[in-house]
């Protein structure tokens, strides 16, 4: 099965690169046959038609290795430098790294609580670190057996949900009170290591990717019941985003590289579209009804939702090898609508956080 899949992917890659070359050539050809003024006009139109436009870059000097997840709060972007054992605090307005939190072994998920004025950082080495949002001094840390990975902040309950554990016994979604820093009794054993998960705001559910079990688990926070959606033909379900208004769940699949769309009311698979390879983050843009899938292969795939049952690939934006994690937080202050992408250091070039501006 796997060999067949590899062969299929190889053929697909050849075809897609061939079409890409063809498209490039025809674009080149059309531009060469026209005179300068219309050509310039055309290129202006082309520039603005891309759904994401690279508009800036913030160097993150001295950071080695992989980046992991992002969070946003009070004009700052927080990004885990997993391979560097730091969390980088970026001032978006100033365009600089404002602060570096050191001494976090393999940080992964980050969450910000504006209510508690705290930053929560999950470490793969088994702790949740809690920092003051002004001084970035460590307030305390909480142990999590088997590592802590993704974290989400629930403003309604002022709780931090922590994906933790690495096997059938320890795998769970645990909770911490953001105000008191206490680990709470609310905990859901899910029978495997959780990857990305999403909290429903308008309902009781938590959706969790469990690639070990080839499942998506749906935890009902009221009844404590867990429903499981098995995945068939799709393996390695890592990132996830939720569109509550349309009852859709978007899941990034690595084998094969697909964007899978589920109906949250029924658990049915609505669509599975070829998507970015090696993805670790995925976002839904409710304003434009688009899904952004950054892939470590060096592309962001952007899908347009025509209606909740129909999707199409809108664009593939070339980025950089290893650009697999990103931050998207909707529209922020001064109307800025941006997408942040982490690019690890390579050769002599320092690591950077790229800023893409969302276009109409």
């Amino acid at each position, binding site marked *: 099965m796997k060999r067949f899949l590899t062969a299929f992917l190889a053929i697909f890659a050849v075809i897609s690169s061939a079409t890409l070359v063809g498209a490039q050539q025809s674009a080149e050809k059309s531009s060469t046959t026209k005179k300068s003024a219309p050509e310039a006009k055309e290129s202006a139109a082309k520039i603005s038609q891309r759904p994401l436009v690279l508009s800036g*870059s913030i160097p993150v000097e001295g950071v080695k290795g992989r980046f992991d997840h992002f969070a946003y709060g009070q004009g700052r972007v927080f990004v885990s430098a997993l391979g560097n054992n730091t969390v980088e605090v970026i001032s978006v307005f*100033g365009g600089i790294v404002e602060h570096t939190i050191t001494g976090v072994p393999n940080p992964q998920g980050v969450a910000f609580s504006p209510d508690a004025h705290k930053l929560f950082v999950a470490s793969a080495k088994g702790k949740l670190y809690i920092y003051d949002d002004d001084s970035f001094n460590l307030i305390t840390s909480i142990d999590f057996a088997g590592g802590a990975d993704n974290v989400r902040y629930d403003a309604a309950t002022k709780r931090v949900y922590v994906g933790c554990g690495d096997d059938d016994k320890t795998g769970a979604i645990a909770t911490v009170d953001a105000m008191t820093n206490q680990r709470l009794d609310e905990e859901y054993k899910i029978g495997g290591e959780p990857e990305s998960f999403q909290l429903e705001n308008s309902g009781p559910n938590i959706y969790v990717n469990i690639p070990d079990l080839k499942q998506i688990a749906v935890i009902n926070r009221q009844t404590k019941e867990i429903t499981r959606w098995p995945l068939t033909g799709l393996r390695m379900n890592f990132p996830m985003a939720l569109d509550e208004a349309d009852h859709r769940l978007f899941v990034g699949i690595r084998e094969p590289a697909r964007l899978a769309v589920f109906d949250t009311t029924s658990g049915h698979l609505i669509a599975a579209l070829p998507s970015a390879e090696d993805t670790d983050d995925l976002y839904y843009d409710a304003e434009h009804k688009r899904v952004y899938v950054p892939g470590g292969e060096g592309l962001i795939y952007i899908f347009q939702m025509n209606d909740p049952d129909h999707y199409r690939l809108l664009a593939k934006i070339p980025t950089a090898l290893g650009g697999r994690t990103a931050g998207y937080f909707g529209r922020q202050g001064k109307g800025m609508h941006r997408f942040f992408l982490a690019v690890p250091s390579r050769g002599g070039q320092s690591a950077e956080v790229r800023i893409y501006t969302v276009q109409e």
Partner: protein
Amino acid sequence: MLAVGMLVSRSSKTVVAQTSAREILPLQLEEQIPVPGVAGRLDHFTADAKRRRLFVSALGNNTLEVIDVFAGRVVHSIKGLAQPQGPLYVSGFDKLYVANAEDGKVRVYDGATYTLRKTLDFGKDPDNMRYDEASKTVFVGFGEEDGGIAMIDPKTDERTGKVYKTEGHPESFQVEASGGHIFANVPDAGNVVESIDRKSGAVTKWPLKGLRGNYAMALSEEDHRLFTITRKTPMMVVLDTQTGNEVTRLRAAGECDDVFFDATRKRIYVVGGEGVISVFQQDDPDHYQLVANVPSSVGIRTGYFFARRDRFYVGVPAKGNEPAQVWTFEAED
């Protein structure tokens, strides 16, 4: 496969022919001036023509960099600022004004020695500043929801009492020297251009119909034309300042934060953070066309047209091992 090969060879030939026939770009890169030790965003510029100096706000670095454009190097760095945005040099009084977003203050410096003379408080987010020679007044755009345009008397460096309310933070604005109006981009107030009567303070709102994020603005007073640049969608909107009617709109560089009108060549330069400078030709006040999208670099979104030197300067933020820079373009006829 054969067809593809033929296509390649044919198109590469036409490329060669095209290159030799292509006209030169309206802006030619002339010099790259390093601005060492500056991290983060560069914001707006101002200039002291007599001393041939250019000032750029290093917003992320909390400094104002002073560049001798004749020598092509940084000659001074004013430190201790708090997210500086729009600087303004007023030659008549030989003073330099710097608006600071973070602490809400406008700092006033001596134009010759760059020593701090005074600090004025504007509450929140003083941003762009303009000088009106006729009334000898410094105008300061500031504030958030309660934003407006305030005034400073450069003789005394005291705030005059009056504030023109704009119903949101004013982004770029322009002061009419002859007509008695101030035009301000106020994206917070429903993405409008506000025309403010300087005598009565009355505000007329000019909507931008379907466009959002109007930040940069330039004025051609002679033609009664206002150029406002939107980010969503990236457009240059030309307005008639006498009627408020839209004359035309054209696609422009995205993520723009500065635009300038070159009165000699009748051209408009739109600096876009996505990595191009859109240059438009004004054929007559009602007709415009794109001359070229001059490639710059990603993240370059502010600039300055130094009419006296016929040069266009842009701020290039530091990236990797490359320090921040100011690039000099020569404006071509």
